[in-house]
């Protein structure tokens, strides 16, 4: 009986969390379905919808093929060169694109690859009538998606390549394998094991890409479902069409996730003795030059837009911007929304984790217990099926139907941003919670430490770095989000990304660059600060 009463608060917390999740998702789903039913003919299936769906899939396929295909030589070159000056910073650089808000990256990419960008200027020096292809449309979308996903895919691939046991390399050198045989018998099998998962992840990210398509996509020819939903709600005032699109999106992500589960089979891994690596294929000069060029090109591709953004930020009228009331309001709104969303996200994640754990520790087995554990475990991933724009569209329709309009907008934006970060937060907090529970459960039970005391004395000191990191990621994600706030934003609710978008729309590019730079700095401070803090506690142990 003692166990039951001790586990009850955790289970209660998890139930509240689940109820909240269910309300948000069911609210969106019900509102969309009711509207779809109640809109006579408004949301019919026409050519436009077909085009949008086709383009969504097509750009995602192309982005995935390009990102993953180009990542293979890059990952191989980096994995082949275990030691070269700048390897550490290069891998750090590869982690950067995902930490930066999409809007910031888009500005940098336009600076480099746009009609009057650096690449065009460089080309003009070489060729007389050299001109860059128009960046707005599929070209720009692909560039931005490759910028985000090539480093991500390469990092995951390097992980797979570095997991190859050292004995395989010794064997390869003893058998006299050349670079071709090594790729065929060692590298490619190691990559192939991870490829479906990596490609699936990149594909999902590109399907759900909103900011890139909104800013670089051009008109109906280059619009994805998410952007079409936004346009239907905010510009065409056609909720019927938005509803159809949102439901198509829901069906598509559901199918993809079902497929993805089948695609990503866990690879068989054999633990390896820790020995220094001796690769037979690294000594040749041709290979060294080739690897060097591949690495240099990849590094340039990633670093140029970031430098370009910094350069245009130095030309931005920072003083003027900081004198504008609207800028300060946007900064404060962004920080407030980000911090609140992060707290909401962490609270929700933690309540789900402890509830599932407490339920597991309850004596006996029953179907509701198993169901509860499963709901807590998978609740956090539901946001992948119902992406932010879907939830946003649902609540937009619901609140407008109730005549509430924008009164509840901040709460909705905070909620959606918080849910959006939930899968990431769970991935950070989940293992930390599991290891703390494994370390402390029996000890605390035997000493009779429970509740607040256990949290204060045993769990929190160990978990603090994980919480810090989770908070930083959730807040950075929310700071950079444009999806929810694009739907619900107004004169009363303007965040930094929304302000940047407005300045871009009115061709005040210098303003946009300056604001984007500020936004990037906020996100970088959060991420780097949290990682520093985590590294420090790890060293201290």
């Amino acid at each position: 009986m003692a166990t039951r009463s001790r586990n009850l608060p955790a289970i209660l917390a998890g139930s509240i969390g689940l109820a909240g999740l269910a309300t948000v998702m069911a609210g969106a789903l019900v509102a969309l379905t009711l509207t779809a039913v109640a809109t006579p003919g408004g949301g019919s299936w026409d050519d436009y919808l077909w085009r949008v769906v086709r383009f969504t899939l097509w750009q995602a396929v192309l982005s995935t093929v390009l990102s993953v295909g180009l990542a293979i030589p890059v990952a191989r070159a980096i994995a082949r060169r275990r030691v070269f000056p700048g390897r550490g910073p290069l891998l750090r650089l590869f982690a950067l694109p995902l930490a930066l808000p999409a809007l910031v990256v888009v500005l940098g990419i336009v600076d480099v690859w746009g009609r009057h960008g650096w690449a065009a200027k460089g080309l003009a020096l070489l060729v007389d009538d050299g001109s860059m292809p128009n960046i707005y449309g599929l070209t720009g979308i692909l560039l931005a998606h490759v910028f985000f996903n090539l480093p991500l895919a390469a990092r995951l691939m390097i992980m797979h390549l570095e997991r190859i046991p050292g004995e395989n390399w010794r064997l390869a050198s003893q058998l006299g394998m050349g670079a071709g045989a090594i790729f065929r018998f060692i590298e490619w099998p190691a990559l192939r094991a991870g490829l479906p998962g990596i490609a699936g992840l990149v594909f999902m990210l590109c399907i759900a890409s909103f900011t890139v398509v909104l800013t670089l996509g051009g008109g109906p020819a280059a619009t994805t479902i998410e952007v079409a939903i936004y346009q239907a709600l905010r510009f065409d005032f056609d909720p019927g069409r938005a509803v159809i699109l949102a439901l198509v999106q829901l069906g598509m992500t559901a199918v993809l996730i079902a497929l993805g589960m089948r695609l990503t089979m866990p690879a068989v891994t054999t633990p390896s003795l820790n020995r220094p690596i001796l690769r037979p294929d690294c000594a040749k000069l041709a290979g060294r030059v080739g690897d060097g060029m591949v690495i240099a090109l990849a590094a340039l591709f990633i670093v140029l837009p970031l430098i370009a953004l910094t350069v245009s930020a130095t030309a931005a009228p920072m003083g003027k911007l900081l004198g504008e009331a609207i800028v300060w309001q946007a900064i404060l709104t962004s920080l407030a929304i980000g911090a609140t969303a992060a707290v909401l996200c962490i609270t929700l994640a933690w309540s789900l984790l402890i509830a599932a754990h407490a339920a597991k520790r309850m004596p006996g087995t029953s179907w509701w217990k198993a169901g509860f554990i499963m709901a807590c475990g998978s609740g956090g991933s539901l946001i992948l099926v119902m992406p932010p724009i879907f939830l946003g569209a649902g609540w937009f329709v619901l609140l407008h139907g109730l005549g509430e309009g924008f009164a509840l907008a901040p709460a909705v934006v905070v909620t959606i941003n918080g849910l959006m970060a939930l899968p990431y937060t769970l991935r950070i907090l989940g293992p930390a919670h599991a290891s703390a529970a494994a370390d402390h459960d029996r000890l605390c039970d035997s000493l009779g430490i429970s509740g607040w005391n256990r949290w204060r004395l045993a769990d929190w000191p160990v978990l603090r770095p994980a919480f810090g990191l989770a908070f930083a990621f959730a807040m950075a994600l929310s700071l950079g989000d444009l999806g929810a706030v694009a739907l619900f934003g107004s004169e009363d609710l303007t965040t930094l990304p929304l302000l940047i978008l407005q300045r871009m729309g009115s061709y005040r590019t210098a303003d946009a660059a300056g604001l984007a730079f500020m936004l990037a700095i906020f996100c970088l401070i959060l991420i780097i600060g949290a990682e520093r803090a985590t590294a420090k506690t790890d060293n201290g142990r």
Partner: protein
Amino acid sequence: MTNPAIKLSDVSFDYEDMAMRFDLAVAPGDFLAIIGPSGSGKTTLLNLIAGFETPAGGHIELDGLDVTALPPGMRPVTMLFQDHNLFAHLDVKTNVGLGISPALKLTAADHERIASALNRVGLTGFERRLPGQLSGGERQRVALARALVRDKPVLLLDEPFAALGPALRREMLDLVAEIHRERAMTVLIVTHQPEDARHAATRTAFVNRGRVLAMDETEALFTTANIPELAGYLIG
């Protein structure tokens, strides 16, 4: 007088803070066990011979030929590790076949050689199995079959059977000893078990702190050696 199959002259190698220095001569057809405490340089000695480590100084000769500067694939040597001797994603036959051609270009005669090598180690019928479906002993048999098709005069074994039980270990040692006789190979085996040396090796070398302190007929080394380090290693 024939050349020694393996000859290390004044081979130096710095491992962390230990300066190793090896002098060793092994006659063709010898079966030499190498014993010694953990971290004394037994594996490094094999790695130097196989070419996985480069000496700081000195010369390594195999059958009278200076191989000090040759890469591992060019040396007339096959080495078996304790683990990961096979590519986990390739079946038994392919793993053996890679010993003939690293690009897997195999002729009909090669396929026959693979079949007879597998037959020799008692794994006929295992061609299409993956390493994950084999026991630890069977995996090492596959590695031995590959050593057979490679047909190099020197076979180096780095604690290859350490993960196996006593009976199975003896069985595997017997198999190695039979192959040793049939092919007239020179075999070096690193082991932690003095009884392994007694069971199979004609001669035994004792390595301590990066040096070969003693080498003799196996029984002679264990019974008559009056080396304090060896006594300390054997008795504690």
